């Protein structure tokens, strides 16, 4: 049994390998927000607020663990290829290969829907590398801009079933991380100039979740019997922030300031419809109030409120069937995301399509292979368009922890 956990650890607890470069959009805010609700939701257009399942770990909604029957460990890695294009400078391709999440769900009381979760998940990522030659005051300067880092979260959650169909959950989260910027001006006739800026974040937050399963049964509406609704809310989180700028070459001056940075209010709603126990239709909408989020006492004019809408469809695995491919889950999805960025006076929008498979590994667990294709931004208005292809591999294994057996 413990070999299953070892497999997950060996395969997925590898250090993230972040190759140089990425989208310039990650320069803003806290970086690219990585929305990961679990291996299954990744292929369902990123939906999962209202998905209840005994086989899958719901990383969006802590109430979604109330149906967990067995301890599960889940890890995921993602490979992203981005092709960035601008009208002025053509296109460039970047690749990142990074750790997505590690999640543990432990059922404590199946009858009461009590389950405990622990997770480590990247929340945002900064990765860009730009070089441009320009003329400054009659001197030729080759300017290089690097950005790296991100914020991650450590979370601990708890679910509880109030009734047979209503579950609630809470997750406490510690956000921490560092974003770094490095800027160098290499002059042809003068000594160069370079800056290193590091932004450190540390703070706590929470997510509250609720699910109402088979809502039609309680309401007496037969057409809604197989409908589940879910809701999550994350209040604003205050992070302690340190902003340190360092002048490395020829000088060791450091300027520092301390303050607060806020992750905004986030609200999400989701619905899932179970069709004849063969198909799940899912849809989510999430809202984040970034326009009023402050960092060091000021809002960022490049941030706006974000809205994400997704839909998905899953052909459920037929576990009683002998065929491997009949026991496989098939998933499709799509999403539209008005991201939290507004640059050069224009909001940056993203849309994409998702697909994936949930491959059975017998009693061991599942392997989820997911694929995303999306487009963000535009080449108009002096902006850039990112076309990305993502492959995610998620492994879920099961372990029998804390199960009680009746004595004969």
């Amino acid at each position, binding site marked *: 049994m413990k070999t299953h956990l070892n497999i997950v650890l060996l395969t997925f607890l590898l250090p993230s390998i972040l190759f140089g470069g990425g989208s310039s959009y990650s320069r803003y805010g806290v970086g690219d927000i990585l929305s990961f609700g679990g291996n299954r939701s990744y292929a369902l257009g990123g939906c999962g607020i209202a998905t209840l399942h005994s086989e899958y770990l719901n990383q969006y909604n802590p109430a979604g663990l109330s149906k967990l029957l067995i301890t599960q460990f889940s890890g995921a890695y993602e490979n992203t290829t981005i092709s960035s294009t601008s009208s002025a400078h053509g296109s460039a391709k970047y690749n990142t290969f990074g750790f997505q999440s590690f999640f543990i769900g432990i059922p404590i009381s199946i009858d009461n829907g009590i389950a405990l979760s622990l997770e480590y998940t990247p929340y945002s990522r900064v990765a860009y590398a730009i070089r441009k030659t320009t003329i400054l005051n009659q001197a030729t300067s080759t300017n290089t801009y690097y950005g790296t880092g991100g914020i991650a979260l450590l979370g601990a959650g708890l679910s509880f079933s109030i009734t047979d169909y209503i579950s609630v959950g809470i997750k406490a989260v510690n956000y921490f991380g560092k974003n770094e910027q490095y800027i160098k001006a290499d002059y042809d006739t003068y000594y160069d*100039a*370079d800056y290193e800026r590091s932004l450190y974040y540390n703070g706590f937050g929470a997510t509250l979740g609720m699910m109402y399963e088979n809502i039609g049964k309680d309401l007496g509406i037969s057409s809604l019997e197989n409908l589940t609704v879910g809701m999550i809310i994350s209040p604003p989180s205050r992070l302690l922030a340190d902003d340190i700028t360092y002048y490395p070459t020829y000088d060791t001056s450091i300027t520092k300031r301390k303050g607060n940075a806020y992750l905004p209010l986030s609200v999400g709603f989701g619905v899932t419809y179970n069709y004849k126990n063969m198909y799940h239709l899912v849809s989510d909408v999430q809202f984040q109030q970034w326009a009023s989020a402050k960092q060091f006492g000021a809002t960022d004019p490049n941030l706006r409120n974000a809205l994400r809408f997704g839909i998905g469809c899953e052909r459920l695995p037929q576990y009683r069937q002998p065929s491997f491919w009949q026991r496989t889950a098939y998933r499709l999805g799509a999403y539209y995301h008005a991201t939290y960025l507004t640059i050069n006076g224009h909001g940056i929008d993203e849309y994409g399509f998702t697909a994936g498979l949930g491959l059975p590994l017998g009693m061991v667990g599942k392997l989820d292979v997911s694929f995303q294709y999306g487009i963000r931004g535009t080449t108009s208005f002096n902006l850039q368009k990112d076309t990305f292809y993502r492959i995610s591999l998620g492994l879920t294994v099961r372990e029998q922890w804390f199960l009680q057996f009746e004595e004969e």
Partner: protein
Amino acid sequence: MKQYAVLLIVFVILTLSVLTSCVEAPNSVGSEVLPSSDSPVLQVDTIFATYHETKHFFSNNSLLNMFCVGRYQSYEAWGLLAFYNFPDTFANISVKSASLRLKACYHFGDSATTLSFRAHRLKKAWFSDSLTLDSLKFFPSEYYDTSTPLSLTFSQALGDTDYVYIDIPDTQMVRLWLQTEHDSLPYNYGLLLEPTNSTIIMGFSSYYALDTSATPLLIVEYEKNGIPYTFIHQTSTTRYLASAPNPALANSSLIYAQNGIPYRTIVQFDVSSIPNPSIINSATLTFTLNPAYSHFSTYHSDSILVSQVNVDGSLSFPWISISTVTTDTFGNRLYSVDLRTAVTSWVRNRYPAHIVVMGYGESASFTRFAFYGPDAPTALKPRITIVYTTR
């Protein structure tokens, strides 16, 4: 079995993802998306000197490769010379004759004229003391024997590389030098050479001259137990004390670096127009020479040095920069110094924006540099051209 096949597929996909991942060097795509606040801004500013003061500074030249004697115009230099570290074999000797051999290596003034000096017996240590010519003149009997003059005198015209042998008639004094065990007090403080001419200052090679054949020699003919011997000794120490009026008395608006004495000038600047923190990419200090008040001599080094001065006027030499010399389109000689490190420390408020200007090799000549000061026309003022980067 299929489970392990699936895991194998996972491993292969992961490995391929790593191996085939592309890395593209930084390029310009996305540069227009970056905020303008990220872009470095290069600016150029010129600041001018706000204050200057020429002062006399103490300089112990005992480790220099030459020492000077003579007088020229308002300059004068007195030489000090002592031989020491004699072997302990001169008990019961009789000194028959003694002479001093010196090699000329420098002159300041009229080269065709005669150098004249007379010698005194020094009676106080001077090797590391902050002795000045003024204090020597004010308290002569404290430093040398004024009651018993020596017979040693010199008067001769010399070329710049001539060897000269000077008789020391005062053989009793020489015998006491030789018989001083372990150079103990009070017999061996050497000679003070007082100039008696007025048209030239000569420089003679010291013990630290690069050419070891040019160092001063003491040549002694003596007898011991009736047997004649010749003893030649090289180990010596020298120094010279020089004085001249502060050149600022002639024209206080100028900035001076007077070698030999020396006089140096403290110059102050105001860098408040440069934002902190800025990255200083270039800072060049430029002085314009005023040839009418400058005085160059043979063998002079046509360079100045610039270093940091503390608020209290003390020198700490955290950095020192040497000038380069160019000529502008109007024929003015410009002395430029790289002050990038200094200006960086000023902008960061680590040091005050005060510098001291002095001659390069200031003990090895009597060259005088005179530069236009803060009151001069803008094109001639001392200035620092600063190129800096902000965001």
